[in-house]
């Protein structure tokens, strides 16, 4: 079973994502801040990360950057998500380079769409 780390500060959004993913057979962990996400990454060792860009203390780009600096975090797929268009444009460019994040979703997105992307990245 794959484990997905959700990094999301909005509790409702986090619950929606975790409920949906768990209903489709994934195990999920939820972190609410950047530092918490980094901590949790080390213990949970997720197979994929869903990272919101607007996070308290450290934004999603920074979190991804930190994860990539860890030797064990170089290859984990990261899907960034944001409700902010401008971040979305930046995030798409970021993901397009294929360096740090593999995909980008603009909120509100369709949960089905998200699931499809997640499945692709984990296959």
């Amino acid at each position, binding site marked *: 079973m794959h484990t997905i780390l959700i990094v999301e500060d*909005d509790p*409702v*959004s986090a619950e*929606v*994502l975790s*409920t*949906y993913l768990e*209903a489709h057979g994934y195990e999920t962990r939820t972190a609410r801040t950047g530092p918490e996400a980094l901590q949790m990454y080390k213990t949970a060792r997720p197979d994929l990360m869903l990272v919101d860009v*607007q996070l308290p203390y450290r934004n999603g780009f920074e979190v991804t950057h930190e994860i990539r600096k860890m030797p064990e975090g170089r290859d984990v797929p990261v899907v960034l998500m944001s*409700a*902010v*268009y401008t971040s979305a444009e930046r995030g798409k460019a970021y993901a397009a380079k294929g360096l740090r994040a593999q995909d980008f979703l603009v*909120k*509100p*997105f*369709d*949960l*089905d769409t998200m699931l499809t992307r997640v499945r692709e990245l984990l296959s």
Partner: protein
Amino acid sequence: MRVPAYLAELGRPDRRPILAGGVVSGYVVTLIFLALLILADAAGVIAAPGPLYGLVAAKLVTNTLAGLSLRLGRFVMLTASVNVAMDIVVMTAAIYFTGSTSSPLYAIYVVEIAVLAMLTNAGVTALAIAGGLVLYGMVVLGEILGWWPSYPPPAVLVTEDNRAAYMIVKYAFDTVVLATVAVFLIRNLARLEDREAKLRKQADDLVEAAREKSEFMANVTHELRTPIFGISGLCDLLEAGAAGSLSDKQRHFVGQIRRSGQNLLHLVDSLLQLAKAEAARVEFRPEPIDLREWIPQVVAGARWMVGTRDLRLVVDLPEGPMPTLHSDRGKLNHVLLNLLSNAIKVSPEGGTITLFVEPGDEGVVFSVKDEGPGIAPEDQRRVFESFEQGDGSDERPYGGLGIGLSLVRRLVAVMGGNVTVESEVGRGATFHVFVPFEAEPRVADPRDATWEAVVSPERLRKLRDTVRAGGGRPTAVRGSSADRPAPNAGQPGS
């Protein structure tokens, strides 16, 4: 009696310190001239010293009256006006008694211009100088016609004995005139520069404040998108059966919640775009658009707005080849969605909303026609302004923020096109958006916010003619103008 504004200004309490300065400078200049007069008199170059001393005394009297009334705070306008008038009378008389057209004193008018321009305003200055010219003209005319005796100028009275004294007095007089004019002009210039700097700063502050407000709005609207994701996500979960299977009624309610969420998202996105347009951050990114393929997608994207209402959404695309439009897909989509959203909002049950697409020579006209209550001619301008909806009264027949059309106008301007409305009360409304085939990429100019969208029916017709002209294919006049009188026939007086 009505007092002109420039005179009334003299009586204003906030002008009193300035008038007080005028009284002081009145004393200074008059006393300097008195001293020069005494010197010139002693030198024997003044033909009629008596009347000149009398004039100086009269000026000192009116100046003192002006000063007193300023102190008492009464009759300020009257005494200030009399004081200025006395300046002109004294100056003209002084010129008359020192040789009229040969007088060396003509430059004192310039002193008056400089002083008045600094201490009063354009109206008072112009009036005083006009008065001076009339009086001086009468002096000259009277001399030609022999109405009054003439006096010789000082230069004629100069002898070997008093030449040196005369030249010293003349030099002193010219210096006083020049210095007074220079002092007042320089002070005036400094005052204007100061004021301009203040205004510029105020303008900069206002622009900055407006920009900050728009940035703030953009941030707020971003924040609003987060809970909307919660709403749509929870609807997804419920419909997917995450909380057990739903009854038909429950499924219907979940659909309504989702629709409300979509509606909210649409409004939030409109606000966001409007904020960006106000902050002049909208960029135009043209790309080729295949209308035949794209338009049905746009309309499909608007179907949720209809919801459970009994409305027909119709697309009217002409047959034959469709030219490719190079424009900004995202913005055009937002424009059409806003127009469709408005049309759906105002349509009565059973109504039809039609989107016409008419390609022409220079661009494409998209028209959205509804069967709503229509917009009165006097309201047709205002509907494009932010936060207006129809008659602007509290009794709103339909909801919404009214931001959509304001946004449409700005976005269309960014695309290099324009938007017009054609409507008659009780007969629905048709919004026409003209988008050129090719437009230079540009950033929104805040000046796009100025009004230019509603055009006269004549210009609208011309626009449609232009659009149709190059097509070579006679498209039937569809939409509003086909089933109602010519736009300008029904307008005047109706």
